[in-house]
């Protein structure tokens, strides 16, 4: 089961996905651990990067040897791209691999923070959406950028919880809620989630899903953390749908105040 069950489907770019947790395939110490973590996560969407074939060790770097492409939906990214043109080039190469039209678009603006270059992101999104790509745009938590990306034809808006690989968790829940309230396009929080409580709180904001990589790959036990994340994403989704009780500053007894002994 995922989130609110089958009636609570996640649809992006016309495709229905069975899990609201999406996971990356980078930075694992070994491929066997990665495969087991992916399995434990219950994820359907897994991200991959586009890189040169290592001509000296051609059979070692490719990820397709390790992924069951009947089971997983490959979402290629443009990680490492610093201009719109570069990201567009990588996206076209990724599509040519022949799996699908989806691209996780990253146009990075700064090496230290890996924060997005939103001008380049909007430019690349516009071009790629026109070319028929289902663009899932990695962005910051700025509402106006999210609105522009939606106007550009993106299939999903992917605001960060906090910087890539930081594990700082959801630093700006208000902005994420604001984006979710204002865009019609699915919102998938991408990057920054560190542990299960981060994932749960993020899903409780009402977003449609979470994409994470380092939180699993850099955990002491990636397989156990993948299991925790699977539950956390489901729990957060269910709690959001359930509608939490209002908070208040004073106590209210849960047991009857009448019927007490004299």
């Amino acid at each position: 089961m995922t989130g609110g069950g089958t009636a609570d489907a996640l649809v992006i770019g016309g495709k229905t996905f069975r899990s609201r947790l999406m996971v990356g395939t980078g930075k694992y110490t070994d491929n066997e651990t990665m495969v087991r973590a992916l399995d434990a996560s219950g994820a359907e969407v897994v991200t991959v990067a586009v890189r040169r074939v290592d001509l000296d060790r051609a059979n070692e770097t490719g990820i397709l040897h390790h992924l069951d492409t009947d089971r997983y939906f490959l979402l290629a990214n443009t990680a490492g791209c610093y201009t719109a043109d570069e990201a567009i080039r990588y996206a076209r190469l990724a599509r040519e691999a022949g799996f699908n039209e989806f691209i996780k678009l990253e146009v990075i603006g700064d090496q230290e923070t890996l924060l997005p270059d939103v001008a380049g992101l909007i430019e690349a999104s516009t071009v790629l959406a026109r070319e028929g790509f289902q663009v899932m745009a990695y962005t910051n938590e700025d509402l106006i950028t999210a609105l522009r990306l939606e106007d550009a034809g993106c299939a999903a808006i992917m605001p960060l919880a906090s910087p890539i690989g930081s594990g700082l968790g959801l630093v700006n829940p208000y902005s994420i809620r604001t984006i979710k309230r204002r865009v019609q396009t699915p919102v998938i929080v991408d990057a920054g989630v560190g542990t299960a409580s981060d994932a749960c709180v993020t899903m409780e904001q009402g977003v449609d899903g979470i994409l994470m990589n380092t939180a699993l790959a850099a955990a002491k036990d990636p397989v156990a953390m993948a299991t925790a994340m699977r539950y956390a994403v489901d729990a957060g989704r269910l709690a959001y749908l359930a509608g939490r009780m209002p908070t208040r500053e004073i106590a209210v007894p849960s047991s009857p105040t009448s019927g007490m002994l004299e």
Partner: protein
Amino acid sequence: MTASITVSVNGQARELAPGSSLLDLLTGLELDPRTVVVELNREIVRRPALESTSVRDGDTIELVHFVGGG
């Protein structure tokens, strides 16, 4: 006719026989064309065209594939 041509493959100079196709290049590198995407002078060459596309001296070729990433 020269004995060989020189092309750049993923930034490395490689000698090839004149008239070699992109598919010949992949075969020589023991790469499966189904898992590699080929760019010739910044233009993607689709798989069905790999065999019929010859490489010329001075061409720049990029061979990419999917690796682990987030």
